[in-house]
């Protein structure tokens, strides 16, 4: 959802000057707080420094993408998890 929220923000920015104004006046954090980002991500996105809205968007993309990658890594099961019970079981059978 987080990348989708960023996509929507950037998409809206081409027809909504309020978004670019929020960025230019240092109030991007207020806008970010209404979107579907975690508290930690919100803080990181609010703290990004960029010379233009386009640059901010790319920096935000990097942050969100890195966060999503990290989340996927955490959610992936270890290959060993699926194998260990089987190994243990076969070992037990041999002992019996």
């Amino acid at each position: 959802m987080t990348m989708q929220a960023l996509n929507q923000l950037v998409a809206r920015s081409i027809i909504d000057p309020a978004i670019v104004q929020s960025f230019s006046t240092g109030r991007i954090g207020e806008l970010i707080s209404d979107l579907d980002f975690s508290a930690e991500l919100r803080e990181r996105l609010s703290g990004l420094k960029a010379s233009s809205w386009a640059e901010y968007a790319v920096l935000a993309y990097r942050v969100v993408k890195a966060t999503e990658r990290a989340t996927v890594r955490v959610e992936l099961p270890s290959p060993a998890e699926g194998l260990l019970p089987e190994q243990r079981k076969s070992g037990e059978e041999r002992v019996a």
Partner: protein
Amino acid sequence: MIPVTSEERQWFLSNLALGLVEYMGVAEPPVPVEEILKHPPSLYESDFGVVDMYSNLWDATFARPPTQRGSVFVRIDLPPDERRFALAREMLSALITSKHGRAMGLSDFLMTDLRESAEFFARKLLMPETLVTAFRRRKGRLQSVSETFQVPPPVASMGWDESSAALN
């Protein structure tokens, strides 16, 4: 301006195109690109327009005559699908040079690879991801993309491949 990868530039351009497609409220292809140029959002009233021209030099080009609104000058005898693609491609120049586009910082960001960026933007505008995905779900095939989205066959093929890559 920070160095930007091609993937990052394409992500940004896809979202600009998405914003315009959502503004138009397009629910099915073809995307009415000439309509938005003729009846733009108020933000782009002095930037969007279409002027038919007799020319053998180019298919379309964006220009902003002094004290007049910017317009895409398009060759009058282009086939409809090529005309749509040329208008969509030149729309990026209209956006970049508009007051809002300058406020966004689009020129620094997109001027270096303008032609490539404009063609990518045009594909995403005329073949939005959501509509291509819906087309695929209805068992749409590459052979009918050009006709459905009213884009030239090479554009249809490229847009289809880009959409496939996005799915993977």
